[in-house]
């Protein structure tokens, strides 16, 4: 079980000129989690992740990695325990996949044996001697992930890692990400603009909209918001609401409807009888379901892909 936050940001802000791309983000990534960083395109996901890696300088705010504040002097030391794949994979096209990994491995100072291990994990063993210019986009993406995995860092930051992958590749990448915390003890931050993707990979989620973090909690907690409700349309909503509250039912009025928590059929029937007996006409009874998508869209302002 996660015990402490591996990554924390405090009022992290980034401005380009007068445009505020990231606005006071307080991110908390628990150790051992797969943290899904969700948001529409242009919401500030990549900029936030770049700031975590020191690739963009925050305008304001602080970053704490592994419990230590990230300063100019400590940045490289802390990043040694980090692997990343930001936007598109980085590679030297005129070198083979293996040669690319050898460069990263040497710069990271990790074991040469790691190259074989990561190539096996991303299933690029057969293409190790092939020039990267001859790789498909999906293979390049996998090579980028292999480079990020070298040295098996404590923290892996992946920005839209399934971009450019075919459906089978996407599925493979998801499965791999899900296994990283349990098999290698790696905490993963993975960004995406696709809710379904994060829903299948993450156990924690942060939702960013127009630079601001609008939601952050466990995915389970987000799912709990996706609840069912019963909507009643009656002749006298105010009187009906009072009656329901007197019965201890948590109800709320929304336009012409009264919204009640989900209850069994017998209880609903009894409730209807009670309202009718009080001369309140019952026009409609509807079952309403607020899906995960609805919650996400309401948080992100209906700008994102589902």
């Amino acid at each position, binding site marked *: 079980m996660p015990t402490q936050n591996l990554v924390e940001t405090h009022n992290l802000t980034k401005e380009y000129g007068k445009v505020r791309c990231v606005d006071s983000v307080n991110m908390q990534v628990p150790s051992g989690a797969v943290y899904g960083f969700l948001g529409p395109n242009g919401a500030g996901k990549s900029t936030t992740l770049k700031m975590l*890696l020191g690739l963009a300088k925050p305008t304001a705010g602080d970053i704490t990695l592994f419990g230590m504040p990230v300063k100019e002097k400590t940045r490289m030391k802390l990043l040694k325990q980090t692997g990343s794949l930001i936007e598109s994979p980085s590679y030297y096209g005129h070198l083979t996949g293996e040669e690319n990994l050898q460069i990263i491995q040497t*710069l990271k100072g990790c074991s040469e044996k790691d190259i074989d291990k990561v190539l096996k994990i991303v299933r690029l063993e057969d293409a190790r001697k092939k020039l990267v210019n001859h790789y498909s986009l999906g293979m390049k993406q996998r090579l980028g992930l292999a480079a990020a995995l070298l040295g098996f860092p404590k923290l892996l930051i992946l920005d839209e890692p399934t971009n450019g992958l075919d459906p089978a590749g996407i599925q493979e990448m998801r499965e791999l990400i899900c296994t990283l915390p349990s098999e290698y003890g790696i905490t993963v931050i993975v960004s995406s603009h696709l809710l379904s993707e994060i829903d299948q990979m993450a156990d924690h989620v942060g939702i960013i909209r127009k630079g601001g973090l609008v939601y952050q909690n466990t995915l389970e907690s987000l799912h709990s918001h996706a609840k069912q409700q019963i909507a009643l349309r009656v002749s006298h909503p105010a009187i009906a609401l009072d009656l329901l509250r007197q019965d201890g039912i948590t109800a709320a009025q929304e336009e012409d409807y009264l919204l009640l928590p989900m209850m069994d059929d017998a209880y609903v029937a009894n409730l209807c009888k009670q309202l009718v007996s009080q001369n309140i006409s019952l026009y409609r009874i509807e079952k309403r379901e607020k899906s995960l998508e609805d919650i996400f869209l309401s948080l992100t302002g209906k700008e994102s892909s589902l």
Partner: protein
Amino acid sequence: MITLLMEWKKIKRKKVGLTMCALMGIQFAWHFWAARNPSEKELLQGWLGNLQTQPLLCAIMMPTVMSVLASRLADIEHKGNTYKQLKTLRTAGTLYHVKVLCGFLFILAMTAANYLFLLALGYLHGYVGDPDPKAYLLSFALQSACCLSLYLLQLDLSLLFFNQMIPLVVGLCGSMLGVILMYLKTYSFLPWGGFLSSAIVMMDWNRDTKVVTYYYRDFSSIEFLALTMVAVWIIVFYTVGRILFTRKES
């Protein structure tokens, strides 16, 4: 040191050395053609003549050669979008230093090859006497410094611009400027004029007798100032380039 070694590994198959050899080959051919069928007077002054010709050819060739070298070293990073990864492994300052150092090693190798060729040419033609080692070493050091100043300028441009046509065009314009400056003055404060400002041997051509006489240059104060500009440009291009590269976000 590891980062520098990786720099060499990165340029594997890019044929940077071969490209430089090809460009140097043009310069060698030029030298060879210029020194063909030497007269008795030319044989007497051959060793001095080499030190006068070398900066002139460098003024024409080196701006382009340096732009090609810098572009080859910077382009591999642009094409593979690698800085966002490298900057998580090394500081931007280290990455800049390594590019400078890698290029400078190429410069030293090329300049050394140039001077060795001049010596070989002298012995082949049978120039009278022996070359002055101090003069050759000084000329070698000054020409390397001039190349470094131009390389730093080109590297800064190549690192800042994704499109490598911009620095290459600057390099070609620098070569043209080198030709123009050669006809105008014996010194210049411009970065591309460094080769002329640092020439330690000058030529006197007598219009009536059509006799060429080479002599060691006695630097006037303004010529000395122009010479020190080479060092100034190195400091300026290094400082500005490093700051811009370090501040540039990936």
